[in-house]
């Protein structure tokens, strides 16, 4: 209760404020929908939101997993071969700096506009970068006593990686995952804006906004939020498992 209590109270306060702002300032639905209306739409369209979430969430999940794996792998390589790190890091940064919209457009042409691959590639890239940046730092920010100790055992770089760097990078990895979880969701459906199959949350949001059905659009946004929160919660649970018993 102490864990979720404040969140619930805060949430209720926020929604109440929103609702009263909409009513108080008489904001029209085309502009901003009231939470009550959004909730109504959410329950009305529950199964559609679920279906669309499965599509976008599936893309996000694939990208999250692949991106995390690649990001970890690359940061391992980077921590081992400085040379490669200096080669690849600026490229990774540049790639990540290209806005999603554009890359998807380019990727859609490179693959097929009806393929989910560009969207997944996009999520992968975003997640990959987040994981890379954090984990690479975690792998190098180790205590020098520890590295010296391992060297005195003639531990291979790989052993040092496994026994010192990796455990040290674990908190960094989870920091990354906490950022990457919501980012994967937003990327998955922002990738839908530019084109492609119209079966995910992103296209539902745009088409509802275009229809001035703001409440319905935000109902899908709510779906997206819950999806992101679910991903986030999973990363917290994983962290709890991975780091149980350790120093606070």
């Amino acid at each position: 209760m102490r864990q979720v209590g404040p969140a619930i109270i805060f949430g209720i306060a926020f929604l109440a404020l929103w609702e009263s702002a909409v009513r108080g300032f008489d904001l029209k639905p085309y502009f901003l929908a009231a939470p009550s209306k959004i909730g109504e739409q959410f329950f009305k369209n529950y199964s559609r939101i679920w279906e669309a979430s499965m599509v976008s969430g599936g893309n996000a999940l694939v990208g999250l997993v692949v991106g995390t794996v690649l990001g970890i792998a690359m940061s391992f390589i980077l921590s081992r071969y400085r040379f490669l790190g200096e080669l690849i890091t600026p490229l990774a940064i540049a790639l990540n700096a290209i806005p999603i919209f554009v890359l998807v457009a380019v990727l859609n042409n490179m693959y097929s506009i009806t393929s989910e691959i560009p969207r997944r590639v996009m999520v992968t890239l975003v997640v990959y970068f987040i994981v890379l940046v954090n984990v690479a730092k975690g792998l190098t920010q180790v205590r020098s006593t520890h590295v010296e100790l391992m060297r005195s055992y003639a531990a291979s770089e790989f052993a040092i990686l496994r026994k010192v760097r990796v455990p040290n990078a674990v908190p960094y990895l989870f920091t990354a995952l906490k950022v990457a979880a919501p980012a994967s969701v937003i990327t998955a459906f922002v990738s839908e804006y530019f084109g492609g199959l119209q079966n995910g949350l992103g296209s539902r949001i745009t088409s509802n906004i275009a229809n001035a059905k703001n409440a319905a659009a935000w109902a899908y946004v709510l779906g997206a939020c819950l999806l992101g929160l679910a991903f986030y919660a999973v990363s917290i649970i994983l962290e709890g498992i991975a780091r149980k018993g350790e120093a606070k």
Partner: protein
Amino acid sequence: MRRIAYRSSMFVVAIVSVVALWEFYKIVGPQDGGKFFGVSILPRANDTAMPHVWTMLSRYNRPEVRGSDTKIWSVVLSGTLFSLRLSLVGFFMGTTIGVGLAVLMSRFKVVQRGLLPYLVMSQTVPLIALAPLVVSWGGKLEIGSFVWPRWLSASILGTFLAFFPIAVGTLRGLASAPAAAVELMDSYAASWKQTLFKLRFPAAVPFMVPAFKLGASGAVVGVVVAEISTGLKGGIGRLIIEYAREATGDPAKVFTAVFGAAALGITMSGLVALSDVLLMRNRPKETSA
């Protein structure tokens, strides 16, 4: 200095390798993409999807539209600089908010438990749902002689994407101060603020640096997407979408703007990397292999 020269030459090597890979793929790759088990895995190597590098480069030196005498490179350059300014504003606002929130959350666990889930959720709200709201509210805002400039809306959206990684990273960093050091500060009855500035922030630096990197690229993405979505003129985002419309007939053109956006991202993260070097220069170096 030598270090910087080395890094730059590495960067050049990296670019050259990518160019080589790109052109190599154009030779060996399938024109219409490759499929494995019915899933297209290999991208298409044709000139529309992947124009030749020299086609893209030479496009820079040709006029933007026929008859005009402004070359594309100057348009892309000025667009990049314009967006850079907005990104910097977004990044600094994002840093302020992100660090502020992290401090607040580390100070009051209640705030952390209450707020963090919503910060997470906020990051999944698509910009498309927010952009019109920000533009509209901004447009209505007038405080004294301050009139909301349109570009500020784009910076705000940059802030929106920048603050989150910064908040999460800083929060983690603030918690990473060694227990013994915290005890020391406690024994001095150091105020919360003193502990924050003299212990927690310095200890958080290794966590904050990657967070700033992500924040910087978040700011860029936010600004560029905002330019696309609100149609703000002058920036690289706007150019990208305008050129994208011509991708059917002039596929190289959109790439010129895409590279501009990439340059923007590199510049921003270069600035952050510089701060990394400055902040970490007196820390114990990890013994090198």
